[in-house]
């Protein structure tokens, strides 16, 4: 029988893969996709626990996470386009203006 533990473990594995991607990849779009993986793993946790405890609130929260993810996708991709216009690159090592 598949228990909630299985879902949570799967979620943790996906989350760590996302972390690894974010920390190691250079391509901004790939990093963005890794963040989507992490968000999805969290969604999975929410839904699994929501079903486990028999409460709808977790699923409503997933809905809001999706909303934020959509907003993030719009703004993040716009930022990547703006960067690309500026630097002809989406390599995060070329973005070091995040200081001062």
């Amino acid at each position: 029988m598949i228990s909630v533990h299985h879902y949570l473990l799967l979620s943790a594995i996906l989350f760590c893969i996302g972390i690894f991607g974010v920390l190691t990849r250079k391509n901004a779009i790939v990093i963005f996709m890794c963040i989507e993986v992490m968000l999805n793993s969290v969604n999975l946790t929410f839904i699994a626990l929501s079903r486990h405890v028999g409460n709808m609130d977790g699923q409503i929260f997933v809905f809001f996470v999706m909303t934020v993810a959509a907003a993030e996708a719009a703004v993040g991709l716009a930022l990547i386009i703006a960067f690309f216009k500026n630097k002809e690159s989406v390599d995060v090592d070329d973005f070091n203006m995040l200081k001062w």
Partner: protein
Amino acid sequence: MEAILFYLTALVAIVSAIFVIKCRNPINSALNLVSTFICLAVLYIMLECPFMAAIQIMVYAGAIMVLVIFVIMLLNLGSIGKSSNSRGMAAGGVLAALMLLLTNAFLRRGDVSGTGGEVTSELIKSYGHTELIGKAMFTDFLLPFEIASILLLVAIVGAVIISKRDV
């Protein structure tokens, strides 16, 4: 049967996720990500949340991924040379592994056999998942719902401004 389906889906999801970060070409990463999303949608169905599965497919695999692929193609990003593909493998690996170990330890240590709420399989089957979501959304969570709409509006405007700006 259910266990086989779960393990199969989980395996595909993990492998796809690994390929997301492994592929050199962002298009391949994106397609693998779609695969991960679909696997998660399958898992949502197995968790008796068909509405969530539907919007997972629509919003993630549909809207967001289309946007990502659109941007990749707009910027004409091909595959990148091996040398500059990634960096800090050791640090990333150590941190990710540490995270996994810790969450695993947390799972083993914690007791997640929570109290049985009012939302049971029978309730979902009799009522319908969408109705339950809608009821919660438009009663208890009406204000966050409205605020989310404003967030999306701001995001739309922000995206237009940022990408339009002449830099």
